[in-house]
């Protein structure tokens, strides 16, 4: 039989074969187990989400037709506090994915040591198909369907893939009308005008900056003149670049979906931000800057720099390019930019990788601040948010760094261990009801 026939036959059999994301979450948990002494019973609790709700979400389309979508809300664990996690609208949303992401939020909140458990929600849909009014009806109906689970002291949604402040505002409004009470703390990531936190927009990028500075200090690298490359010039990358520039670093490379640019002397980031603000699609395309050359996104990753911040898409640093990465430090601003193979190769090269679960935790920490302000009905100045954010992230970095040092393990595993152990301890202290 020809090789092509084998390929065809295997392809047919393996069509749509996908790795179950929840099984992957469990494997990560199993790896942590090899490094901890968590009792078996507690382990069984950690392996299973507390609640999984599947809902049918019918909406009336603008043309009068009715369409039904499937949505989910999963609460993975609430031992450390009410569940916290975003809501995503995407055709790829499945219950297994939502379960896995809810578990991820449990560890993430625990690593940052904010008093939350983990949750996640989503609707399997293509939101770009909807008009604004259809999207509003979808959001409100979904909110009504998951209403029995969510609440200020129970489970607090936030924005995620294809959801934004407007969607959160609709959720807050729907909950208010269903409950008959003003409870802005039911959801975070809202518009400032109805209880959103000042500083929320910058929080993830500011967190990346704070973590980067903390790592440089630990490695004995002076921030002044430190060469930084940032892949992705969206909300996270551009803000991290601006703030690192203000701290003394030299931003020598930037990129977005339209291409990349290298300027060994360093960019005037405020000038670049002004350009992007006015450019079509808010992209870097067409940027001009003295001493600058155009590069590809792939070339940016292998530049001779001190710090590399992948803040764009997942799986950017892979087995194919990891050997060529020359940065001393990688701070994962995006989720999952490094594949397991690349992790291995970069570790062998002695490159310090700050994992996403810690590096981009600024967003969830600021969500926590929004919730606190909503509960207290006492909004903070932006400066206060920024200061507290820095303190919480520096504490988390210190704890993860110390654990990695003590056990001679990667920062990634140390962060997981810290998160999982904190949740396990909370479960043990509470005991099992009844």
């Amino acid at each position: 039989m020809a090789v092509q026939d084998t390929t065809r036959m295997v392809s047919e059999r393996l069509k749509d074969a996908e790795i179950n994301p929840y099984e992957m979450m469990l494997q990560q948990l199993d790896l942590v187990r090899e490094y901890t002494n968590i009792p078996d019973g507690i382990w069984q609790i950690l392996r299973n989400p507390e609640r999984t709700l599947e809902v049918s979400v019918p909406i009336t389309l603008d043309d009068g037709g009715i369409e039904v979508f499937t949505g989910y809300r999963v609460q993975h664990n609430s031992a450390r506090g009410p569940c916290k996690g975003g809501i995503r609208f995407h055709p790829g949303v499945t219950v297994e994915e939502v379960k896995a992401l809810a578990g991820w939020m449990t560890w993430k909140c625990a690593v940052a040591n904010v008093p939350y458990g983990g949750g996640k929600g989503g609707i399997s849909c293509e939101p770009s198909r909807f008009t604004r009014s259809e999207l509003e009806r979808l959001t409100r109906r979904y909110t009504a369907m998951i209403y029995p689970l969510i609440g200020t002291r129970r489970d607090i949604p936030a924005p995620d893939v294809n959801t934004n402040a407007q969607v959160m505002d609709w959720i807050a409004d729907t909950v208010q009308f269903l409950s008959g009470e003003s409870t802005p703390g039911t959801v975070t990531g809202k518009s400032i005008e109805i209880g959103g936190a000042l500083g929320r927009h910058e929080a993830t990028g500011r967190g990346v900056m704070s973590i980067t500075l903390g790592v440089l200090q630990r490695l004995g690298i002076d921030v002044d003149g430190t060469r930084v490359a940032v892949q992705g010039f969206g909300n996270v990358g551009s803000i991290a670049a601006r703030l690192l520039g203000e701290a003394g670093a030299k931003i020598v490379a930037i990129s977005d979906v339209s291409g990349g640019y290298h300027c060994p002397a360093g960019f005037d980031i405020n000038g670049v931000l002004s350009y992007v603000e006015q450019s079509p699609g808010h992209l870097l395309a067409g940027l001009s800057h003295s001493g600058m050359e155009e590069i590809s996104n792939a070339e940016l990753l292998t530049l001779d720099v001190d710090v590399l911040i992948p803040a764009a898409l997942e799986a950017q640093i892979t087995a194919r390019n990891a050997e060529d990465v020359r940065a001393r430090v990688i701070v994962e601003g995006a989720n999952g930019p490094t594949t397991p193979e690349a992790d291995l190769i970069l570790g062998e090269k002695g490159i310090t990788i700050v994992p996403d679960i810690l590096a981009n935790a600024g967003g969830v920490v600021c969500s926590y601040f929004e919730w606190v302000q909503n509960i207290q009905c006492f909004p903070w100045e932006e400066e206060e948010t920024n200061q507290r954010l820095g303190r919480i992230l520096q504490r988390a970095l210190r704890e993860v760094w110390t654990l990695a040092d003590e056990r001679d393990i990667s920062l990634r595993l140390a962060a997981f261990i810290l998160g999982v152990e904190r949740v396990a301890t909370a479960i043990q202290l509470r005991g099992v009801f009844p």
Partner: protein
Amino acid sequence: MSSRTPSGLIPSEAPSGILFEEALECCSHRYGLSVEAVLRRLEEGDCGMHSTLRYGLAKGLSGYLASLGSVFHEVYVYGSSISESSNPGSDIDVIVVVEKRRDEIANLLKKLDLSLTSHYRRLVGLKRDPTSLLDIHVINKTEQAERSGYGAVIDGLHSRAICLWRSDPATTGASREGSPRRSSSACSPASMSTQR
């Protein structure tokens, strides 16, 4: 998966489909059967066929690990995969020798296992079992030299571990293609025994 996948949920890059294709071709060559017939035999639980498939997969896996540079030094297979006694639920017993055990290695091997197990279940039409297709033990050079733990299995009197790949100090780290290439290498355990 939708986008913005956190690192804990990023799968291995290993080309599972190609690894299975090569392993099926091993079976096809060894038994002189079409791949279709091989798949039927696998579904029927033919022990010899399952052992050959597993041996072929282990060989492909060793090629993949070799492509990742200087981390891995040697890869061995032992157990039912080389004794014609595998059944549909059997795992593949593998020993990898590394310079130093690191958590990144354990993480990658777990993700490789999950990927291959998911694809294996799909290929052979199994619902749940095996929960894990790979049973990989990582040992360092010292354990190998002192024959401690699984280091003893490599040269054991009662077990027969076959070396699938050994790094060449002269070329270590020189090649990194990201995926194994098709090869016409030996498909049956017996033909590899001289490499012990």
